[in-house]
């Protein structure tokens, strides 16, 4: 029924058989083109503070665009390698946050006492900006790489905890009643009712978490240095290579989008069909 409904709506609004390519690809391309033209017009003068798109392309074409994986030693590496380094940190920090966050979220969701004890704490801690943790973690861990990973961890964990908790708390009373009357054991309740019921919320938390991780890693790397897209941007700024910053921002945005879609894709495979909104 819904298929029929949406189809008829589509045909009445947009005419018949418009291919998906025309419908979904052309409008953003037009928008990008318009933005590029405006950008070029604004920053085309000789006194412009920022490079226009053509300048950016000219200055970054060789070697940054054509070879993302060059390695001239030190931090002088292609953008692909820089991003991989950042992604590696995100992978470790985010995975740890997912494991600890889901476990803690389930615990907090199951026990009203633990909820009352910890929730106020979580609500305060989650508002602490990611970078505010960095000095502390540098002081405690003494090394830049683990510190950056800790910042990812502590940034991503709050939405994972909070969403998992909500997911456990919202298990419908009906299912809890079924569990009671069947006297389901703890593990059975966990696998057959709690987890399937909470998994959409868990993935909402993971999706917010991965987004925040990517935001945080760029900022953290600016301060910790080393190979990584964040320090690449900072280094480029210090050497006045503004075109490289702009190129890096494009890459950061695209990778962030891919990460978000990746988690959404995993969710679409894992979340029970019946649980999809």
């Amino acid at each position, binding site marked *: 029924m819904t298929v029929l409904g949406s189809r008829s709506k589509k045909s009445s609004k947009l005419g018949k058989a418009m291919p998906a390519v025309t419908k979904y690809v052309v409008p953003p391309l037009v928008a990008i083109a318009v933005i590029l033209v405006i950008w070029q017009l604004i920053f085309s003068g000789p006194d412009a503070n920022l490079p226009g798109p053509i300048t950016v392309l000219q200055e970054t074409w060789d070697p940054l665009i054509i070879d993302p994986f060059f390695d001239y030693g030190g931090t002088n590496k292609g953008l692909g390698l820089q991003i991989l380094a950042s992604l590696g940190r995100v992978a470790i920090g985010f995975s740890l946050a997912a494991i600890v966050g889901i476990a803690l979220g389930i615990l907090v969701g199951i026990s009203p006492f633990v909820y009352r004890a910890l929730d106020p704490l979580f609500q305060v801690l989650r508002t602490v900006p990611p970078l505010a943790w960095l000095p502390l973690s540098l002081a405690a861990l003494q090394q830049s790489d683990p510190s950056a990973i800790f910042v990812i961890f502590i940034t991503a964990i709050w939405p994972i905890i909070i969403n998992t908790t909500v997911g456990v708390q919202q298990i419908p009373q009906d299912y809890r009643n079924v569990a*009671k*009357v*069947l*006297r*389901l054991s703890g593990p059975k309740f966990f696998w*057959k009712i709690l987890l*399937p019921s909470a998994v959409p919320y868990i993935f909402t938390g993971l999706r917010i978490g991965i987004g925040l991780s990517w935001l945080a890693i760029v900022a953290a790397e600016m301060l910790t240095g080393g190979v990584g897209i964040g320090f690449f941007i900072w280094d480029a700024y210090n050497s006045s290579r503004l075109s490289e910053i702009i190129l890096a921002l494009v890459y950061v945005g695209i990778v962030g989008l891919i990460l978000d879609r990746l988690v959404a894709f995993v969710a679409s495979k894992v979340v*029970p069909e019946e649980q999809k909104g």
Partner: protein
Amino acid sequence: MQTLNTTALKRPEVLNGDPFLVIDNVSKIYPTPTGPYTVLDGINLTVYEGEFICLIGHSGCGKSTLLDMVSGFRKPSEGEVRLQTKRITEPGPDRMVVFQNYSLLPWLSAFENVYLGIDSVYPNKPKAEKVAIANEHLAMVGLADAANKRPRELSGGMKQRVSIARALALRPKVLVLDEPFGALDPITREELQEELLKIWSDHQVTVLMITHDIDEALFLADRLVMMTNGPAANIGEIMNIPFPRPRNRARIMEDPEYYNLRNQALDFLYRRFAHADE
């Protein structure tokens, strides 16, 4: 209550039995900011083994609260409910509940929903036997072919069948049904009533069922418990339904007694205890 047709027409096994399920002077009182609120006030009801009891009453009269105390989801504020002289304190598989909204787990197939209960209640039975029990009860409700379907692929009537299969697979002593057919269309409802009746007589299970439908109660029940309006609701009247079993819907409806009883129940619900907003 009229005494003209009481014990003589009860089923024989009921006549001789000891009290099976006893609701003994049960009250339910909730504290509220404006003082205690009495939902049920001093309910007494004795149910015999194998009886089919229907409860009827206007919404808000505490029928569901009463059944919740039988199934163990709530505790009486005063009095107690006993099953075979044992006080009921918590839910358990000896008092299986069939909920109005089916309460099937949507991510499990019909078979898995039934199997989950069996597996939980009989953890030590061999797997093959548990599978056989699940399949047998799905077949009993006519769903052998739909065993692998998820609840969302099933109609309302089929879902309620799965729910009944899940309950009966555990061989409960009491089957508690809270308006089980309320959400179904009339034809499906009649089909399921007949199936429930057949299952009940095959299994010899004791049934407590809430309904809003007088005809449903007259077709199914041995006794119809009519509740007064809340707050502080009580049992207003208990009607014996004398029609012989196995019952045939058409034949019952030809019986002049049917309309006599029906009018009595209607009179109770819509004149003597008419709801303010109905």
